[in-house]
């Protein structure tokens, strides 16, 4: 298992380098320029100067190599400095956002908490509602509960989050006035009152996202449980005189979760990627919003860095899913 992991990590390096290059070229090649949100009142020669100051006029390969160096060398040094109070970086140039002139990693640091809390909670809640629904649907296949579950899951897929999000806002904020529409990223949970506030502001985005996630995962769970219910070992467990709940929740579930857990693991990078639409609707300003904002103004360093981190996460979680598979299923042995 260990050598498998190491080997996969080693092969991931060239893959990721290639991915980073492709992303860089792609983002660079895309139309649009970092000047698009500069007012038209700013004359062309000034725009030209601003581009030069960002280094945006350099050849693309030069910028790519610089980014590589910054990402893999300078930024880790700053990371070490931040943790140990050393000064290895010695003021080397960090990756700086073209739009805000702030180091991209600072932006990521600022945005990570809200993305993780909202999208992460939503994912967790989604999984927590999806599992029982999926299990019960399979256990009572073709019952009305199962039919309703199918319908619910399909509706969850087909209704976009911008619709459900706005609907919730209209009902719970505008009409009823119960919940805030704007997410306060500066809120720190220190006591019950602030915890209550946090819960209130998370309620709607978490609901919207959780429903969306739950729809998909409940489907996977259902089919996986269905498959396992027909297995011989289930009959063995019953023949041993186990209660139905033991049979279902111990024997069947453990096996059914193997594929589901990997699906969940593969879905996790999206948690870090943020939920672009939902973040926008509820003004959460997480990583998703950062990425989309940066794309809109062609803030190449930010787009590149964020996207590359997502790529790393995707590759990592692919690996984690494989390893999880190996851990959960004793039959699978890597190497």
């Amino acid at each position: 298992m260990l050598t498998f992991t190491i080997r996969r990590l080693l092969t991931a390096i060239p893959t990721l380098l290639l991915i980073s290059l492709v992303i860089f070229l792609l983002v660079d090649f895309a139309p649009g320029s970092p000047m698009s949100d500069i007012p038209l009142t700013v004359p062309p020669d000034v725009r030209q100067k601003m581009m030069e100051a960002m280094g945006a006029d350099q050849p693309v390969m030069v910028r790519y190599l610089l980014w590589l160096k910054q990402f893999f060398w300078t930024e880790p040094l700053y990371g070490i400095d931040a943790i140990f109070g050393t000064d290895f970086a010695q003021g080397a140039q960090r990756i700086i956002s073209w739009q805000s002139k702030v180091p991209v990693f600072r932006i990521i640091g600022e945005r990570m908490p809200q993305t993780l809390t909202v999208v992460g909670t939503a994912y967790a809640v989604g999984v927590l509602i999806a599992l029982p629904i999926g299990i019960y649907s399979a256990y009572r296949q073709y019952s009305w509960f199962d039919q309703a579950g199918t319908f619910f899951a399909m509706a969850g897929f087909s209704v976009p989050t911008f619709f459900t999000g706005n609907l919730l806002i209209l009902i719970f904020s505008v009409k009823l006035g119960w919940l805030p529409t704007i997410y306060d990223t500066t809120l720190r949970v220190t006591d019950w009152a602030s915890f209550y506030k946090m819960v209130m502001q998370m309620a709607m985005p978490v609901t919207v996202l959780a429903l969306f996630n739950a729809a998909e995962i409940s489907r996977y769970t259902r089919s996986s449980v269905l498959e396992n219910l027909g297995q011989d070992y289930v009959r063995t467990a019953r023949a041993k005189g186990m209660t139905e709940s033991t049979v279902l929740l111990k024997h069947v579930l453990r096996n059914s979760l193997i594929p589901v857990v990997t699906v969940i693991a593969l879905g996790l990078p999206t948690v870090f990627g943020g939920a672009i639409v939902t973040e926008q609707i509820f003004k959460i300003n997480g990583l998703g919003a950062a990425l989309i904002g940066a794309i809109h103004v062609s803030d190449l360093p930010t787009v590149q860095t964020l996207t590359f981190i997502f790529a790393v996460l995707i590759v990592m979680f692919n690996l984690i899913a494989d390893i999880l598979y190996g851990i959960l299923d004793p039959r699978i042995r890597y190497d």
Partner: protein
Amino acid sequence: MPVLEVRGLKTVFQTRGGEVHAVNDVSFHLRPGELLGVVGESGSGKSVTMMSLIGLLPSPPAQVRAGEVLLGGVDILKASPEELRKVRGARIGFVFQDPMTSLNPVFTVGAQIMEPLRVHMGLTKAQAEARAVELLELVGIPDARKRLKTYPHQFSGGMRQRVMIAIALACDPEVLIADEPTTALDVTIQAQILELVKELRQKLGMAIVWITHDLGVIAGIADRVMVMYGGQIVEQAPVWELFHKPQHPYTRALLRTIPKLGGQREARLQVIEGQPPILAGAPTACPFRARCAHAFARCEAENPLRRPVDGAALGHGHDVACHWTAPAQESADA
């Protein structure tokens, strides 16, 4: 008094294509310490009969329509699901056909053996573990304590089947039902298991139902044999009787089809032509009539009842369900 007595069992599957009458009016009994062999071709209802006994059939399609299953004199078919559950694994042990898939791949062997011990006998973890080691040693798995912590996939087929037997024996059941326990195994391993069962019977003295299609296996271990065809018991006899004085045309044909290791080699194998019956609808005629060399008009009109051959009470000696009477001198022993 028999440990297990089944009377008039009837099991039906509700399918999209209509009802499948998989078990029709099956009655038999099992004496303490006896090994009852059940043979019959695939689909004849052997497994369904046994699973009906303890409610292991999935309930939307399957439905036990009629019958009594008396375990120690008490009808367990009328028992509540919870009571039935307490019978399963504790008083009736079950070994299934395919050792590769019958064990849960994600739990250790030890955990799976200990489960019934803890549920039915209320043992502590340590006690259960000790008993599990004992059981594994009983079924001949060396180094048992270490093996408890391994997973089924680390065992060979024969060892897995032994584990299944260990699980079935865990709570010292009165009855052990083995549904084709060696079909998937190699001859050499099958020989090991058969040897083991003989040994265990002597040691533990429980009653066993042994399902198989292999007449050779039956010949080696059974006391009494039941032949099933089309969801019915067509013949029932002590093992020697059955092999030497088969009465039912199906039994006779079956005995002829198998090549023998010893003796003369046949130039050509005998076959039973035709297809097994489709079990749709309650039987009104003999299920074997279409393939029967001796079939006559009555076979079409009426489903034969079991009748004693040797004068003993029905179910205790040799009986057959056939309208045709075999000539006395004829014997399958060539």
